């Protein structure tokens, strides 16, 4: 991550009005944000908190009521900025009558790519998102997960520097979710800047360097994930193979130093980990049934 600012909002405000110009809702209130090159930035918040509005303002799909949004130092309404960014919408809004190949070819043409470069990109992206066997199928025959994957491929068609992901794991199964998160981390390793918005906290926690928490259109918290999640007055000790005596001794030590023992028990894995372990095991040993170890 460098200090170079890729994306910036200054007092960005959005008010939705009705046909007669009367204010309906104030979706975003004076948002100030800066996103730096090479980081994964998460926009968090409950439904209606202004996450998607922020993304749409950054993309120029909406015009700010007040303030401004700058992408690569240019106003969000400047079409030129799109040369360097990729966008995965909340749902993959793609032409369902096109095949995967045609879809990527179409978006490649929109970047004015030469046929050679376009064909190379199409092939590599289809491989990357694992749709080789479905490349000739129309998108209307795709499952939700496949549609998300081709959506991501179209967002990467121009090898963008900045990628905006709106609810990237929405509608994906745990495997798809994990693959998406792995993909985000891989893109980060390649030096891309990623801005994602989500209300799935675990996803954000897993991949984001910094987050902004929005609520009712206002910025409530902004900072590094590890700093924000650190509970300063609680100490966590994790150890393996402790005897009962040893555990009792630790309890005594804590009591002697006037500490408060909050918990000492065996940790549980996450449901995601359990699910992935089972699925991988099933793939490795097909035919094995539940209860048979």
């Amino acid at each position, binding site marked *: 991550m460098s200090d170079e600012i890729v994306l910036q909002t200054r007092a960005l405000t959005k008010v939705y009005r009705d046909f007669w110009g009367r204010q309906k809702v104030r979706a975003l209130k004076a948002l100030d944000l800066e996103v730096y090159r090479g980081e994964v930035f998460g926009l968090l918040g409950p439904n209606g908190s202004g996450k998607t509005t922020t993304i749409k303002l950054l993309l120029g*799909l909406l015009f700010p009521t007040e303030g401004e949004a700058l992408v690569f130092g240019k106003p969000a309404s400047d079409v030129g900025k*799109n*040369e360097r960014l990729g*966008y995965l919408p909340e749902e993959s*809004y793609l032409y369902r009558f096109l095949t995967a190949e045609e879809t990527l070819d179409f978006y490649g043409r929109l970047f004015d790519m030469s046929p050679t470069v376009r064909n190379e990109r199409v092939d590599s992206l289809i491989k990357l998102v694992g749709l080789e066997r479905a490349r000739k199928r129309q998108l209307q025959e795709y499952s939700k997960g496949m549609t998300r994957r081709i959506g991501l491929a179209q967002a990467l068609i121009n090898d963008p520097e900045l990628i905006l992901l709106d609810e990237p794991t929405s509608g994906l199964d745990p495997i798809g979710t994990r693959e998406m998160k792995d993909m985000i981390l891989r893109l980060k390793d390649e030096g891309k800047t990623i801005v994602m918005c989500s209300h799935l906290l675990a996803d954000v926690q897993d991949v984001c360097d910094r987050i902004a928490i929005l609520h009712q259109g206002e910025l409530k918290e902004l900072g590094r994930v590890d700093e924000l999640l650190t509970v300063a007055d609680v100490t966590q000790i994790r150890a393996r193979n402790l005897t009962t005596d040893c555990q009792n001794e630790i309890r005594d030590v804590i009591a002697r130093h006037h500490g408060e023992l909050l918990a000492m028990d065996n940790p549980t894995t996450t449901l995601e980990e359990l699910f992935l372990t089972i699925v991988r095991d099933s793939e490795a040993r097909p035919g094995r049934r539940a209860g048979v170890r």
Partner: protein
Amino acid sequence: MVLEQQLLPYFQWLLYGGNGELGALPKFALVFLGLVMAALVVGYAIAAARHGLLRGGDVTYHTIVDGLREIVDTSPRRIWALARLAIKESLRRRVGVALGVYFLILLFANWCLSTNHQDPARLYLSFVLTATTYLVIGVAVLLSAFSLPGDFKTKTIYTVVTKPVRAGEIILGRIIGFAIVMTVLLALMSVASYVFVVRSLNHSHDVEVDSLEKIVDASGNVTGRSGRTTASAGHFHEFRLDAEGFATTSTVNGHTHEVEAVGDNSFRISGPNGFIRARVPQYGKLRFIDRSGAAKDRGISVGNEWTYRSFIDGNTPATAIWTFDDVGPHVREDYLPLALIVRVFRTHKGVVGRPIQGELRVRNPDTGATSDPFPFDAMDQQVDEYNINRELTTNNGQPIDLYDDLVTKDGRLEVLVKCLERGQYFGFAQADCYIRMPDGSPAASYAKVCVSIWVQAVIVIAVGVTISTVVSGPVALLFAAGFIILGLWRQDFVDIATGKSYGGGPAESVYRILTQANVMVRLEEGVLTTLLVGFDRFFAKPIMWAVAQFLPDFSAFSTVGYAAEGYNVPWDRVFQDVTTCLAYVVGLALIGYFLLRTREVAR
């Protein structure tokens, strides 16, 4: 053929104009300037209301400057990508069904059309071309009006506008894509309909052997045989075989056949000739002499509301005189081919079944030398063709040469037509008499008619795509349909807007409808009626006038009449139509660009 306005040569039409109209290019520039000014004022007013006076000015300025820059950045590859998408979308939306509907229409068309008609080619051609026009324009409206709104509804537009795509490319891509679809559709329909017409009109006859009679000259020698054909397609032809056994039959229902004797009582008859023609007329200038012998610009009125033709009285000095330029042996070495269309107006029946007689003479406009009159029988609104031989005689029997004595050195010649019967009238317009230049190719002329249909479809597509940038599909459909309807009656619209036709404006019309007061009823004076009339005069009619300035005259685009009546569509006409179409596409694409650019895509 009715030609209410003289067709100007292309470059004159483009640069200087005529017929009381400005040149097309200056007019385009004026309308464009007017629109730009109006857009600036409206744009600034909206921006100022949203952002304040200064910031509003800044936003307006940036919109224009960025817009101009983006026009320069337009990429043909992106436009083509979007055009391909529009083509695929059209195919997905089953545009081919229109073709199926068209073939179905052709399949059953013969139930309603008859070859036993005075001019069956006109009947068939006008039917198929009109059907093609309506179907193609209908499909064009549907495709263009629902395309972009569909993208907005499914939000697929999000993934397009977040690529480096300029709004103008989206508009142009759509227009070009749908235009390509329409071109293919129209081409298939045109080929199918041409084959349909040719095959439907095709027929043959046999010779009625019993009708054959020998033709004997004064010295008793047999010079040929006369007879008639068997009836087919509801008619028969008469013919006179020459000594070599060849004949061209009489013209019935607009066609002839070639007859060839191949034995004593054996004949070969060709298929129909002259059904589908592409006459190339060379028009002259028309003036009149009235019954008292005075020169006039127009003849008299017989009370027709349509003032296209004016009339001359029979058995008086009243004469219709056409002056033709560029006449000479280059037209035809041995004769001058003329065509004359007469509108006969009878004040009494005359002799039942007998046509009204007239006479035609040719005259040298400088020397006044005039040929002997050629009498003719006038059939109402029929194209009669005459060949004026070179060897002529004057009134007093002196032999004269058509081109040497009756044509001036600079190639002028006058044709004088009179009605010979008292109490009867002949009506003429300038286009009713012309020199027949060699016919053009009927297929080529037919193709040119299809170009005029294509032009209409492309304008409709441009309108549909442009308006659909700001409104939903159904509203865009209504707007485009309204645009076509207003365009079809553009002249009436302009006449009402300019006060040439009486009928009040929209407010007065609504008031009259509600109070059941027709236009002949004088409105009661009062505050309400004064307000309504004032609203029409100072607000509604100026807006109507402004709208009329960029409303296309769809009725004038149609060249179906040319093909149906057997005339070649002039290239000047084709170039004018295509240029007009291009102007609409450019203008509408620009409007569409700013409408789309200033729209919040995600609203």
